[in-house]
């Protein structure tokens, strides 16, 4: 369906350019565990953020909890400042169904009331199940429903596409 192999440097470059355009809002950079946090860490300095970044773990907000249980690797959410009335840039590695973004927004609203949330995704792929769209995208990718794209890291970041097990 799509033979283009995601190039991590290109993706980071495109995201960085997009982030620079919103810097004047003085937004707080927040990465979603784990892949989004890795991307946010890379982009934090290069895109010109000076304030400490935040991280979110959405394990406690997932809508498939009853079905699959709690993520065995829960990480702590950390927001360094009060987010009330702040612009937030939310970073995720892959935007697919939109359910992770939905959960992440719920987490944020339990910490406070942000002024706005800007969504940055390393890869935007097809398969949305909720009305959620990204504002900043590293790469658009069209995959078959059986294909899966994943960010590996954190030392060396790479996106890999694989076939889901039948």
């Amino acid at each position, binding site marked *: 369906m799509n033979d283009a192999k995601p190039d991590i440097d290109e993706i980071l470059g495109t995201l960085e350019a997009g982030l620079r355009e919103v810097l004047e809002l003085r937004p707080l950079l927040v990465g979603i565990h784990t892949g989004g946090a890795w991307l946010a860490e890379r982009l934090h300095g290069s895109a010109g953020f000076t304030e400490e970044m935040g991280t979110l*773990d959405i*394990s*406690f*907000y997932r809508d498939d*909890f*009853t*079905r*699959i*249980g*709690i993520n*065995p*690797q*829960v*990480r*702590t*959410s*950390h927001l360094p400042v009060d987010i009330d009335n702040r612009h937030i840039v939310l970073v995720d590695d892959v935007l697919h169904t939109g359910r992770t973004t939905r959960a992440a927004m*719920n987490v944020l*609203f*339990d*910490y*406070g009331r942000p002024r706005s949330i800007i969504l940055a995704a390393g890869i935007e792929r097809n398969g949305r199940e909720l009305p959620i769209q990204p504002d900043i995208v590293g790469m658009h990718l069209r995959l078959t429903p059986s294909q899966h794209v994943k960010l590996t890291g954190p030392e060396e970041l790479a996106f890999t596409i694989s076939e889901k097990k039948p």
Partner: protein
Amino acid sequence: MTAVSSNLPRADLQYTSDGRLRHLLTIEHLSPETLTRILDTAEGFIDFGHREIKKVPLLRGKTVVNLFFEDSTRTRTTFEIAAKRLSADVINLNAKRLSTSKGETVLDTVRNLEAMHTDLFVVRDSQSGSAYLIAQHVPEHVSIINAGDGRHAHPTQAMLDVFTIRQHRPDFHKLSVAIVGDILHSRVARSQIHALNILGVPDIRVVAPRTLLPTEVERLGVRACTDMREGLEDVDVVMMLRLQRERMQGSLIASEQEYFNLYGLTQEKLACAKPDALVMHPGPINRGLEIASDVADGEHSVILSQVTNGIAVRMSVMAILMGGKQRPEQ
């Protein structure tokens, strides 16, 4: 005096056939992976106190019943807070048991509550094995947490204790731990010993007068000491137990004063432990009986963190038991 009871919960009742933790009745027979998972998940609930909204939606729509046949305001309250922070509906029942036909009464009570679609029972009883009995009779979707049964087990207390230890001493494989006090009657001590053993603590000592040590206590994987200084020598952690005065009849101890002189934790005795040793106590404290006030409130004490951690650990256990009940769709 009974030796270590092994006729109570079996491993197969706590896990489902596909290896998911279904009930928490005792620490015994749990895998190191299960314990580590409870601790890791609790880590995620620790910073909750700092949030604007101290709640997550994990157990929304679930009903948790605190079924307490034995009074315990403190334990009940932490379970209640834990369940509420997970957005569950919580009902507290102080179900003081009738003295006759005990088993029937417990099960009848539970059947009634089950008919109201309860998802999780937190059970406390002065009789060993109550939580196990209930777990044997509830339908598949219902989970049980043992919040203390007789002299048998108090698994969430042990988990919050090892969680507190891990916050300060991340590597269990290097630790020396002393548990001091009424080992004989203590469900807390039993659960602590199992947890420490499963997590790989190489040196576990129990320190008590001979009258307060179970026979063959060594079979639990501990070293017994009747001398406090020997027991505390170079330990990293001192876990004190509450001495329950009502259980000290029949000459188990000569007098409270003598007990304090020999086994009460004072600065002087604590000096036998490592200089940065942690002092723990499950509460409520009998100041001047098992522990001196200046030690309980001193720099080594992590007693109040234990209380805070108790909520996170109980949230973790509830979340693990209640999650993943349906099989994946694909």
